[in-house]
């Protein structure tokens, strides 16, 4: 194969790896409101 085909393949693979990392990192950093399972079944006032 021509050298530029290899270059395109390498660039595409690098872009896919970077995109995957960014998506994974965004998922890991996403916040929420976490609660105990037992609390989801009922909480009592103090």
């Amino acid at each position: 194969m021509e050298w530029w085909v290899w270059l395109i393949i390498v660039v595409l693979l690098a872009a896919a790896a970077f995109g995957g990392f960014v998506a994974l990192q965004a998922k890991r950093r996403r916040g929420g409101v976490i609660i105990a399972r037992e609390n989801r079944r009922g909480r009592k006032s103090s």
Partner: protein
Amino acid sequence: MSEPRRANSVLMRSSEITKRVVVTFAGEDIAQVKDIIYAANGGQVGGFTLNGRGFLAGPLKTSLAWASVAALGPDAVMIESDSVLTSTEEVLASTGTAGDGQHGDILGSDVLTDDGSNLGRVVDVIIDVTGVHGDQADVVGYEIAPDPKMGAAERLLIPLPDTLAASGEHLIVPAAVRNFVSHDLAGFGAAIVAYRNQLNGQS
């Protein structure tokens, strides 16, 4: 018995708190809020899990217990120093939230009334923060994306009672909540008080 909301309390959405930076009194910017931990013993906020600073940093193994928060300001969560951070398992255990994975995210859960109607899906949680220095923070309501059957297009705020029952993956609220929905935070404080008074048989 419900209590009237305190004069110096502020209602805020959980999404306003997550991603807020955690800063020490020495001016060090050490973390960002990731999750809000909803304590199992009465609806108070028990603490925060944390992300490291910068996009490349993932979640930290340490968390911030609510008792260690010096102030919850509009732009930052202030703490005395990074020594007040403790292990996430410890904070989860102290709030009654098991550190063994037996906890879940409220966001995305369905809200059902006790007469079996689906009100919608939780998109945010409303927190009542009392005191300039964030003396106490209670979860007082949910913001929901209404079920299409409700005929409402925009998000609604529903107050929570003092006693709440839920089952499985659903959050259960009394059917009377339909009469106290709000569209914005401005009138939501009064709706919470009126709703809780009605549930407690007061006028």
